[in-house]
């Protein structure tokens, strides 16, 4: 049995949120959180906009499918299957995305292409 990917993700996200609260509590000057491996999501690129720096990732459980809207960090790294740039993130590509959460916003700082988008030549 493969466990649902969501439960560990939620735990990690909660841990990240707690760590963030602890870091910003006690009158410390607010500073942007250092990007860390707060969450890993694997899904298929549904839409990508290199100019806007956004990615819609298709994932879910069973037939209950969901879209995760991801903002690509300015210095996002793209690797795997010969990909080096955001332009490689075509619809259909299967990607492992390391990202951080801030409220509902998901920001990716590493995208690894696991499977390139299928050829659409036919």
């Amino acid at each position, binding site marked *: *049995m*493969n*466990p*649902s*990917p*969501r*439960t560990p993700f*939620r735990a990690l996200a909660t841990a990240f949120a707690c760590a963030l609260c602890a870091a910003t509590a006690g009158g410390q000057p607010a500073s942007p959180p250092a990007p860390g491996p707060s969450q890993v999501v*694997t*899904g*298929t690129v*549904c839409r990508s906009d290199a100019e806007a720096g956004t990615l*819609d990732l*298709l*994932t*879910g*459980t*069973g*037939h*209950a*499918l*969901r*879209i995760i809207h991801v903002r690509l960090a300015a210095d996002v790294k793209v690797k795997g299957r010969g990909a080096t740039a955001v332009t490689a993130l075509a*619809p*259909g590509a*299967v990607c492992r995305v390391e990202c951080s959460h801030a409220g509902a916003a998901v920001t990716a700082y590493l995208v690894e292409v*696991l*499977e390139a*988008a*299928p050829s*659409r030549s036919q």
Partner: protein
Amino acid sequence: MKAAARALIALSVLNAIVGASSCPPPPKPGDPLRGLAAGELDRFRKGQEVFERTFTAETGLGPLFNADACGECHEDPVLGAAGDEVELHVAALRPDGFCDPLADSGGPVIQQKVTPALEQALGIDREPVPATATGRASRSTPSVLGFGLLDAVPDREILSRADPRDRDHDGISGRPNRFFDGRLGRFGRKALVPTLREFNAGAFTIEMGITTPATPAEETVAGRPLPAGVDPTPEPELSEEDLGLADDFVRFSAPPLPLPLDHEGERGKLVFGSIGCASCHTPSLSTGQNKVRALSYKRVDAYTDLLLHDMGPERADICLGLAQPSEFRTEPLMGLRLKKTFMHDAAATTVEEAIELHGGEATAARNKFRRLGPRERSALLEFLSAL
């Protein structure tokens, strides 16, 4: 004499006891797998209660749903078997070639019922079909009996039969579908879903609007968030324990065993192989090592290869994952005799009609079926009616 009679009676009683314990009767449809441990059997019984539980808006039903209980659809002739409900799925094959299941606008499953609160709030009696949908599909209720064994078949067993480029030139390609994270799929009519656990958890949400720890977010109304106040039950609406129990009910359900074949049925089995049906409807698969002994290293006479095959343009409906509109996973034939409709869309009411609806890769087998003499045809149908 008396001593001999007593000994004979004692031997008969002993034989009956040993016989009963060593060779239990085969499971009937709806029974649990043979060989389950006591704790597993207990979970099967408790899971049966969750599976047939009727949900209400107060216990999490909806606001969008297709049924108010698993057992509302999976019910005929026993709990967990098929049903007569047919639901609507949609997808869009976009101009860029990407198959979009329209997850951000309510797809791929379009719920046909709403709770009174949602109807009052939005004035709708079902979920609207997204305007961007390019394909619609009817999906009948599958039997889930024996799905635990299908879940226990190792990926390598499925992949060993794949021949996407038809390198053996038999006209049968067979290719795997994959979930959106890249894992091999096997459940669902397009073989999208990798595991039974995910198939079941997802079904609670898309079919009944019941959120679970694995699916904590409600379905949207064609992509729009739910109006305030229509879903008062806190998420998740089903506990991890109840989800696990329902999952174990399905996992531990025995597949309907084929009936014993007479001479004609045996001949029909040979016809089934000789005309090419068995090229996709692989008679048996083997499970791998499993923590549940009753699922470990078992043969399952499922009559499927769990791969996608092209069924021809007449049957084409929606794409899903890597599956093209005309590609469908080979439907398991275990329990075929218990079904009242056939094919993924319930388009056939007899086995013969179903065979006639096969096209694409199955065209050659269908044509051979058409050319069978009356005796061979009768034998084949006899065999199929025993599955």
